[in-house]
């Protein structure tokens, strides 16, 4: 199955819910779904299209658009295609159902994203601090409005 076929199938199945779909290079598939169709799309990708191995998950903060774009990177062991599944969540109240029940491999990545970006993965069993100290309460470091000033070296070589 090539990536174009996969895009066709997804568009037939979910129609308007697929916001973007592209395949900029061989073996790459970028899909963006609206967040209400995320779980069904993920199930469909896993069961029908054979994307079975989770290799990453995370998010990007867009304060101007007031969204956090979440992504899950999944590899298909049968077709050797890498999928980047994306969706937007509201930045003020970032809640999204977890995909951990579909791809177990994203469990730790989702936990890390919860910690560093403040995205609430609903149904995730183990949302507790992983990389940061247990008593961290200074915000979410990967958000764009996180203040680096207290942590910048006094001779800082970074732009002001």
């Amino acid at each position, binding site marked *: 199955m090539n990536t174009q076929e996969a895009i066709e199938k997804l568009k037939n199945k979910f129609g308007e819910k697929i916001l973007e779909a592209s395949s900029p290079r061989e073996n790459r598939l970028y899909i963006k779904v609206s967040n209400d169709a995320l779980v069904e799309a993920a199930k469909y990708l896993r069961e029908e299209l054979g994307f*079975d191995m989770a290799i*990453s998950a995370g998010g990007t903060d867009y304060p101007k658009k007031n969204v956090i774009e979440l992504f899950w990177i999944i590899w298909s062991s049968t077709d050797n295609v890498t999928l980047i599944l994306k969706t937007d969540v509201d930045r003020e109240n970032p809640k999204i159902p977890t995909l951990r029940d579909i791809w177990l*491999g994203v469990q730790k990545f989702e936990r890390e994203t919860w910690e560093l970006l403040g995205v609430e993965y609903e149904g995730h069993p183990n949302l507790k601090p992983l*990389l*940061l*100290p247990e008593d961290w309460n200074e915000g979410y*470091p990967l958000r764009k409005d996180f203040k680096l000033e207290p942590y910048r070296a006094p001779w800082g070589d*970074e732009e002001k």
Partner: protein
Amino acid sequence: MSDMMVYRGNPFNEIEELGDGMFRLHMGPQHPISGQGRFIILTDGERVFDIEVDIGYSHRGTEKLLEHRTFIQGIVPVERMVMIDTANILMGYIGAVERILGVEPPPRANYIRTIVMEMNRIISHLYALGLLSESAAWNPAVFLWTTADREPFLDLLEMLTGARWSYSFFVPGGVRADIPRGFKERLLVTLDWFEKRIDVIEEAWIYNELFRMRTEGMGVISRQEAIEWGVAGPNLRASGVAYDTRKNEPYAAYGELDFKMVTHTAGDAYARGWARVEEMRVSVDIIRQAIENMPDGPVRVRVPQRAKPGEALFRVETSRGEMNVYIVSDGKDKPYRVKISPASFRNFLAIEMIPKTQTVLLADAPVLIYSFDPWFLDADR
């Protein structure tokens, strides 16, 4: 006298009862095998019921740092993630940056990169084998042997790049320097010597009866589980999944070279150790081919300062497994977001899952952990 006998509970030292004589054993961060992390083991004294990997003791916020640095300034923070495997880790970042800047390195640079990366893989696998042997209590014999065997490769890397570790040798658009005079001859001599050393290591260690008793049938991951849990690298191939980024999505010069992918079907700790030994042979083979077939030409091209808005995902096979770097650019000279998903981070999930599926004894825990070749600085970023 009387106050000496009074029990003053120390919260960190107390044997915390969890019913049925179970307690949590904290291996690390101060422990002979723990490294910079902590393994919280739920045990009744001998049987392990649960392992929880507690990482983050050396979290440096690499992803955030990269957002505040230009593309070329990002080399150093990325490289420091795994000191023993710098070239492969750096290749992930450089590859993603090149993809987003839209440049292709010249062919000769690709071949030089391949040689450096494979030498790094040998160094890293030697270190991993040493740690695995030490976790099965080989006094440090094998560990020191493998440490000594790394030296000729470190010398070669110093000759090529000017540093034994963290050479920052790869830059977007190529490598910093061409290979020096006399390097090829010395490399070939070293490879001949090293092939004999692999035989020695294999004989002393892989075929050792007691080592097999400790590792065979221990920590088995089936093919299905390996895919489910997202295991990476030699650990994945030891479970029978034929995935090697060098083959599946060739980068650098791997697409033009002919080499074997090491796979095993057993999926136990022994297979993972053995897969690493065999991969060192494959690496020797790759280096030989690369140095013989190296094309002429420049080793570096000019690259633009700014990237077009867009995103790129680059997958690279580091020694510990496949790492992927996902870069989002907003058209500036700095990345908007870099997501690095290192191999160790994925392998820790498998370490946590294995006690849930099979019997693991306390003595197995270090062997189990080190059969995955974890690297905490890698996972912490």
